[in-house]
């Protein structure tokens, strides 16, 4: 065989193992079907998000993948392993932050790190020196603090640290930023991007569309146990004809119908003197609008464009807002 042939075969795309592959996953609770035959794959090194309202089945899905729950149908492979059959082997390789989990009240941060590190075969070079792990998490000065003395955000970051002590290949984050203030949430996003930059795959669930949009390479929108759409955030917004909004206020009585006749404007709304134009080609509309404003001597106030968001995508897909 030619020297290149073997590596050509092994290098073929079909041989690259998926980080996670789920096919036809079904999970029932009593008579209720919580997960209704969902399938998707997660590529190594990506941030994959599962979004949807509370009760959509996000936590059930993530816990089936982690091996905490036994599926009623379908197959799951994580790094090529079956979470039910090869559970312990799998747990050596994944790091998990559970939704709504707690720790001993009277354990110190450094003791918790030490304890969790001892559960794994792989001995990372932390030794007693945790600064390298906790510095980026902002816990360097908290190593000797008790768990109960930490703030909500610090507890969450400690749970991330505990998910990272054994240098896992995949990190699972379930509703990581729920209950955090906006500033802490943004800091958390930067942190997750940093973790991905170390070559880890990240699977997260959230019910904040903004979070999915800012953070994820690809997003699966889950509702009532089914995946409604799966793509990159921008792809999702574009594929659904996600329209941008052009907002402004106009002095004096304005003829709303004249805006409707602008090319590429699909819809016009008027709310409390504020005019909103919907368009998938907002820059073209914007230029035309400014031209007409000049020739008609309109005075446009507070003119700005709002991008379509995943919230709009969800609204389009389900006919209802995400948080009702």
């Amino acid at each position, binding site marked *: 065989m030619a020297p290149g042939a073997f590596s050509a075969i092994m290098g073929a795309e079909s041989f690259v193992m998926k980080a996670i592959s789920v096919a036809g996953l079904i999970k029932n609770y009593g008579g209720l079907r919580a997960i209704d035959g969902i399938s998707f794959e997660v590529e190594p090194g990506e941030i994959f998000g599962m979004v949807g309202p509370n009760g959509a089945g996000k936590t059930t899905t993530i816990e089936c993948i982690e091996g905490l729950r036994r599926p009623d149908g379908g197959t799951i492979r994580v790094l090529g392993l079956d979470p039910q059959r090869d559970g312990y082997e799998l747990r050596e390789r994944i790091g998990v932050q559970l939704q709504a989990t707690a720790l001993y009240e009277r354990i110190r941060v450094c003791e918790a790190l030490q304890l969790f590190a*001892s559960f794994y075969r792989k001995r990372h070079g932390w030794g007693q020196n945790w600064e390298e792990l906790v510095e980026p998490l902002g816990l360097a000065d908290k190593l000797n603090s008790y768990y109960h003395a930490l703030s909500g955000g610090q507890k969450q970051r400690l749970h991330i640290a505990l998910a990272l002590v054994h240098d896992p290949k995949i990190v699972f984050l379930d509703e990581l930023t729920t209950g955090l203030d906006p500033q802490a949430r943004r800091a958390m996003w930067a942190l997750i991007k940093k973790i991905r930059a170390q070559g880890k795959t990240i699977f997260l669930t959230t019910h904040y569309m903004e979070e999915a949009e800012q953070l994820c390479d690809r997003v699966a929108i889950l509702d009532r146990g089914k995946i409604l759409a799966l793509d990159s955030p921008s792809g999702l917004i574009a594929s659904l004809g996600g329209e941008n909004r052009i907002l402004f206020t106009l002095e004096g009585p304005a003829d709303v119908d004249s805006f409707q006749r602008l090319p590429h404007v699909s819809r016009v709304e008027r709310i409390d003197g504020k005019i909103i134009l919907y368009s998938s080609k907002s820059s073209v509309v914007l230029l035309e609008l400014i031209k007409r404003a000049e020739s008609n001597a309109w005075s446009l106030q507070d003119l700005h464009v709002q991008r379509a968001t995943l919230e709009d995508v969800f609204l389009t897909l389900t006919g209802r807002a995400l948080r009702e």
Partner: protein
Amino acid sequence: MRGFLNLTWIEVKLFLREWQAVFFTFIFLPMLLFFFGSIYRVSPEEMAGGFGPVDYMVPAFVAIGIASNAFFSIGGVLTSYRERGIFRRFRVTPLRPSGILGAQVLVAYLMTLLSALLLMILARLFFGLKTSGDYLSMWAAFTLGSLSIFSLGFLIGSLCKTARISYAVNTTLFFPMIFLSGATFPLEIMPESMRRLAQLIPLHHVVALLQNAWLGRGLAASRLNIAVLGGLFVLCAALSARAFKWE
């Protein structure tokens, strides 16, 4: 194994940081000893077999230590760790279930053993404690008594849904048990009906077993106690295996 040992060590530290556990295990029993030891000042010669009140009292108090750790450590901890999701968090690590639960039982056993040794040393120093059993029998009796009452605590911890319920159930069982089983007041001062009732309380059999071993009465004297406690252990272990849930 490394994970199990680390978990056990952390649980020891957490035990010692919990004032209630420390009080019941290391302070309450010596208090009982000094209180009752000062009341019953009978010289050994006046009692049968040359043993004084303290020689009966110490194994009975050791049984109280067993009960307090069975209910408040094992039972309470099991419910509260489940309620707070600590077990769930361990379940997504490679730590085995036997390691997670084994650590809890081992810590309770070690703490109870320490409290028994402390009590015996104090009783020896201040009240001239005498034992005539061999140490191996005493240890075996202590271990059987611990495991059987621990299994009862484990079952209650498995059945109770919240730490509040668990605390209420454990308190309700613990105090009548230590007062009516002969662990606190000797059965000899109680009426016949109470003595018969005591036979139905598992802790009474621990008290009897430990006193027999401490006073060197031989295995034959404890046959009934051993059978009852062995049966209790098997029953509770089997029921716990069905009732126990991680979440």
